[in-house]
């Protein structure tokens, strides 16, 4: 029982990282843009989030407050993600470059920037970039009072997580409400499904695509920051972050492009990714656990395309650019 609870808690910690990446990419893909640069975006979010918190503490000294550091880290990561996806948007929407190639280029660029800045900070700060223990704790602090966390079983599963997990859930719910209940959300889905129809209906395609992609990139970037600040212990660690962005792309498919599914989907994927550390099932080598998320995603992808039910499909124009002149 305790093993199961620790497994769930650990799965949530890793799942939170994935949830941001996935939610951002869902918003992006809803507009018909397949941004394969999530990997790079999350690298940039991680390194700039760390930089934001680190330099804030350096400037404020002992007076540095935890909540403010968290806000600065989020803002820094969000801004870096926005810049990265703005490049992608400009190239694919305005300059009409191929989405797959641009996304891969962004991945190469973003991982480069992430490692470069991470490495540069390390060298310029004399070998080690780390926050003081005070701030570190505030990043991984439990936000609910002790009596809630103390409830047996449920307390640990529901209330023992960092602020980032609850923030991600808020974002997921808001995104669901936006996409399903507001006019603008429906417009956005229309743009992703059929740009030419939306264009004819008078929706400003370019605006929707830009906004969705840029904000989505920002959200994805927060995921990188969360990884660095919680799992990696506030130290730049590019090995741990590598592959997370691609996993987020997989998770988008698994969630069927629905933000609410991302909540449990990311915890499930998180569990699959860390299971090899905690549970050993006889006859299945631990290394093979790690490919489970991808295998499951492939199966979901195949099944949805076979069943061909309308509400469980990728946005119809996903990956294709829209030019009004090209018919």
């Amino acid at each position, binding site marked *: 029982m305790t093993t199961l609870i620790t497994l769930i808690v650990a799965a949530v910690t890793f799942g939170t990282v994935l949830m941001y990446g996935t939610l951002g990419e869902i918003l992006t893909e809803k507009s018909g843009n397949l941004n394969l640069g999530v990997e790079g975006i999350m690298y940039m979010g991680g390194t700039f989030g760390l930089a934001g918190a680190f330099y804030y503490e350096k400037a404020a000294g002992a007076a540095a407050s935890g909540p403010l550091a968290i806000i600065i880290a989020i803002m820094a990561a969000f801004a870096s993600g926005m810049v990265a996806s703005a490049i992608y948007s400009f190239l694919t929407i305005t300059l009409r470059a191929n989405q797959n190639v641009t996304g891969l*280029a962004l991945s190469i660029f973003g991982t480069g920037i992430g490692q470069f800045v991470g490495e540069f900070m390390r060298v310029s700060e004399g070998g080690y970039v780390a926050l003081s223990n005070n701030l570190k704790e505030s990043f991984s602090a439990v936000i609910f009072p002790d009596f809630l966390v103390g409830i047996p079983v449920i307390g640990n599963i529901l209330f023992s997580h960092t602020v980032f997990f609850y923030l991600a859930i808020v974002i997921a719910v808001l995104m669901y409400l936006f996409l399903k209940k507001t006019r603008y959300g429906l417009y956005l889905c229309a743009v992703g499904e059929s740009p030419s129809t939306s264009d004819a209906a008078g929706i400003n395609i370019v605006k929707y695509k830009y906004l969705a992609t840029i904000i989505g990139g920002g959200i994805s970037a927060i995921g990188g920051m969360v990884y660095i600040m919680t799992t990696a212990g506030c130290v730049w660690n590019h090995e741990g972050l590598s592959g997370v962005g691609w996993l987020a792309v997989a998770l988008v498919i698994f969630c069927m492009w629905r933000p609410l599914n991302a909540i449990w989907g990311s915890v499930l994927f998180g569990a699959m990714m860390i299971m090899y550390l905690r549970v050993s099932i006889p006859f299945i080598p631990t290394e093979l656990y790690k490919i489970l998320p991808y295998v499951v995603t492939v199966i979901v992808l195949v099944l949805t395309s076979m069943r061909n039910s309308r509400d469980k499909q990728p946005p119809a124009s996903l990956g294709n650019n829209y030019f009004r002149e090209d018919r």
Partner: protein
Amino acid sequence: MNTAENRTPLIRLAKRTEMSRRNMWLIRVGSIIIALILGCIPMLLTGNNPFEAYGVIIQGSVSRPVYLKQTIRTAIPLLGCALAIAPCFKMKFWNIGAEGQITMGAVFATYFALFWSDKIPHGLLLIIMALSGAIAGGLWAVIPAFFKAKWNTNETLFTLMMNYIAIGIVAWLQGGPWEGRKGSQLIPMFSDSARLPTVFGVNCGWIIVLVLVVLMYIYMNKTKQGYEIAVIGDSVNTARYAGMNVGWIIVRTMFISGAISGVVGFIIVSGANFTLYSGVADGVGFTSITVAWLSQLNSFAMIAISMILAILEKGSNTLQTRMEVPASIADIITGILLFCMLSCEFFINYRLIFRHKEKKEVTA
């Protein structure tokens, strides 16, 4: 100002009908130069002299035969894999699974290298390794192609997932069945008979790849199959009306593509690493997609592009040791280079018309 003028947008676009070859290449070279200038920014920000840094990159990659050999060794898989991707992209089948196809090719080549090297003579062993690599890579690529042909499953996402499954399989082999010394998590080094011979100091993979360049050029431009691929790329419906079996062509093309990637995997393990590990493809599958696209899927242009990227990568390693600039600068400059070259195609295809120009024409 009258209303008609107000309605004209500030900038309008018009498709260019024709552009001289010279201008096209001027724009492309110009975009590379702009990229190199933009690449100065991170160097300046970190307090390094960009001219000196570029000097070191060039020096460290081509100035001495030793460096040049290493640069070519980096370029071989990039070029080979770009060739593999070209037919898929021509068909508008977005195969981003080359990474996994390389890995599977490498796995099968490694199997023969590990368990048959003392039973089969050198030359035959290498041929068997290459063939098994090709078949493995091809079959790995056929899986998503089959589902695409049958149920129109999204191939971009499918091929992407297949990469990580392949890499996971290698990670398992590495720590399990093929592990050399217990606990080392390493697969033993190949014996000499499973290693590619060197020609002019570089493994003979470069000859294989250059032959493939010519073959791919002929295949894409001079054969019926190459023509079918081009038709499907332009319009699937046209291909159907013309009586082509679109599903079969998709599967066949993906097999060829995967097979070439598989051979690249064989070249990497047998010519460069002499062992197999989960990072065997090392991003080549992704980078080569950009190589293929930037070359306009032209086999000969790929030689130049893959050399440029290889020079950047090799040179940056030297840069790191000499000037303490992190080697990831290579990725940044590569990224900027890709962005610039991707955007320059826009200016080749479209013409910008500004509003005030229009006005003059009206008054004149």
